[in-house]
């Protein structure tokens, strides 16, 4: 296992499960896309190129930092509109490609959500 992954792995475990739930809600109209979507995103995180994975972990931390500093709560605990605003801000600034990486992240969730719960979005 590469050293970078070993370093970021504990952070991934701590942050991402809750964060992905929050991101799912901010991205789609449904409140929770369930364990299957979460598991899929984790599987993808494990196999994506290591430098992109590191970037995604940094993007996660960045979103959490904004949430905690501005709203005194973790990203997943603040209300939907504020979460959407944070995502929009990160994506529009695209510092260190974080916007692109979050887009990747959200695309993964969207792809799996639509396949798992097709009727929620299509109709």
């Amino acid at each position, binding site marked *: 296992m*590469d050293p970078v992954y070993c370093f970021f792995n504990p952070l991934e475990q701590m942050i991402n499960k809750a964060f992905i739930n929050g991101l799912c809600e901010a991205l789609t109209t449904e409140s929770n896309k369930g364990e299957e979507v979460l598991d*899929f995103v984790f599987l993808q995180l494990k196999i994506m*190129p290591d*430098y992109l994975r590191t970037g995604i972990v940094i993007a996660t931390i960045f979103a959490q930092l904004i949430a905690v500093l501005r709203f005194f709560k973790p990203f997943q605990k603040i209300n939907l509109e504020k979460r959407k605003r944070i995502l929009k801000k990160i994506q529009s600034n695209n510092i260190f490609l974080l916007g692109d990486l979050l*887009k990747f992240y959200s695309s993964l969730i*969207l792809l799996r959500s*639509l*396949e798992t719960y097709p009727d929620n*979005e299509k109709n």
Partner: protein
Amino acid sequence: MKKTEIIVIGSGPGGSLSATLLAEAGFDVTLIEKGKYLRLSDVASFSSEEMNKKYANGGITLAFGKTKINYVEGACVGGGSEVNSGLYHRLPESILTQWEKENALSFDQKLIEEYYQNIEKEISISLLPGEPSKTSLKLKDGAKKLNWNCAEIPRWYKYNEDSSKGVKQSMTETYIPRFLDAGGTLLTETEVKKIKKETVDGVILECIEKEQRVYDIKADYIFLCAGAIHSPFLLLKSGYKHNVGKSLKMHPSFKFSALFDEKINNENAEVSTYQVKEFSPEISFGCSISTPSYISLILNDTNNMKYLSQWEKMAIYYMMIMPEGMGTISKIPFFSSPFIRYKLTPKDYQNIQEGYKKLATLLFEAGAKKLFPSVKKNIVIENLKDLEKIDSLDKSLLNLMTIHLFSSLKMGGIKKNSAVDPNGKLWKSNRIFACDGSVLCDAPSVNPQGTIMMMTTYVINKFIADHK
């Protein structure tokens, strides 16, 4: 230490064909594949599960540059042939002539014709027996109104006599069973970490199995068939540098999700088999996989998810260019994945711009009401004038992607300009050959599997003639 006569690394079209021809010629061949052995029916085509199980890095792979380009590669037994649409082209003659001229190569035309015919028979190249999909018909209608050349492209498909449903003749359906029948050894979920040592009597590779067991394996000859990214990357990790990974080419493509008045799409829609070649080789058009989830990705990028409920009236169309620019593959310290850079030239951007304008013209002629471009901005195109919104965008906001990668170990007759010689052998080695998309001299301007298989047959038959 395990020993074998020949190791083939990678089991895509180049690797499976190489391994089969060599095993059938009587060599002791071991085929090593990093991915899993999954049959076509094990995973739904074009699903997120397929991305996860059959694509390199789960399909999340990116070439960096002013405009980032998403690229995808197959990473399972059968490689790209398991995940692509199965569209087949021969290399255009004009392109082959250009390759010969620019790279001091000379191919025997009679042999090439013979190889193509064999390949086409073995993977059942055929046209769709029934009616084309409605998405194909839209492309055809638009091209007809503009008097542009649009044709059906054959696929490697075996159709039942009484229906248009068929089975894709991917490597797991064709060459892999033949390879195993010929006595070849297939090692799956095994990664070659590096080429450890090249000695006077062979090459030693360091491999790692899925249980993380590391072992060495020795062979007389190595055939690199891990694709245009991983073949050169393995060489770079092993200290081979001469023209390795410096001339990567691809076919960047730009997409529109087009909304029509009537239903043209459904859950079981067939792959579109028509392509517009009026502006080929520089620019080509076709229809992409248009599942609701793929459509949603474009709509999500342009913040137009509200249109997803109309997905049955939508399909994704692409325009693809033959680029002038090229890319590099490199290893970055502390990271184990290859890092890809790709530089598009002003002419490439001009072709992209011209390409999306022409594609939009065709789609509006075909009856499209709205076009959603693959850009990172909320843009809807309702008429040709609206295309200025894309023209004025910063280039970093274009979403380009490709599934065609090649030329990172370019073949040539002049050592200074190429990585492998006309026999497919690495200039800097006596025992390492390459047989995949990486040896192509340039972008072929068409779906590359036919060209890869022809070049592979060429290299392997020369090797067999010289070594048996």
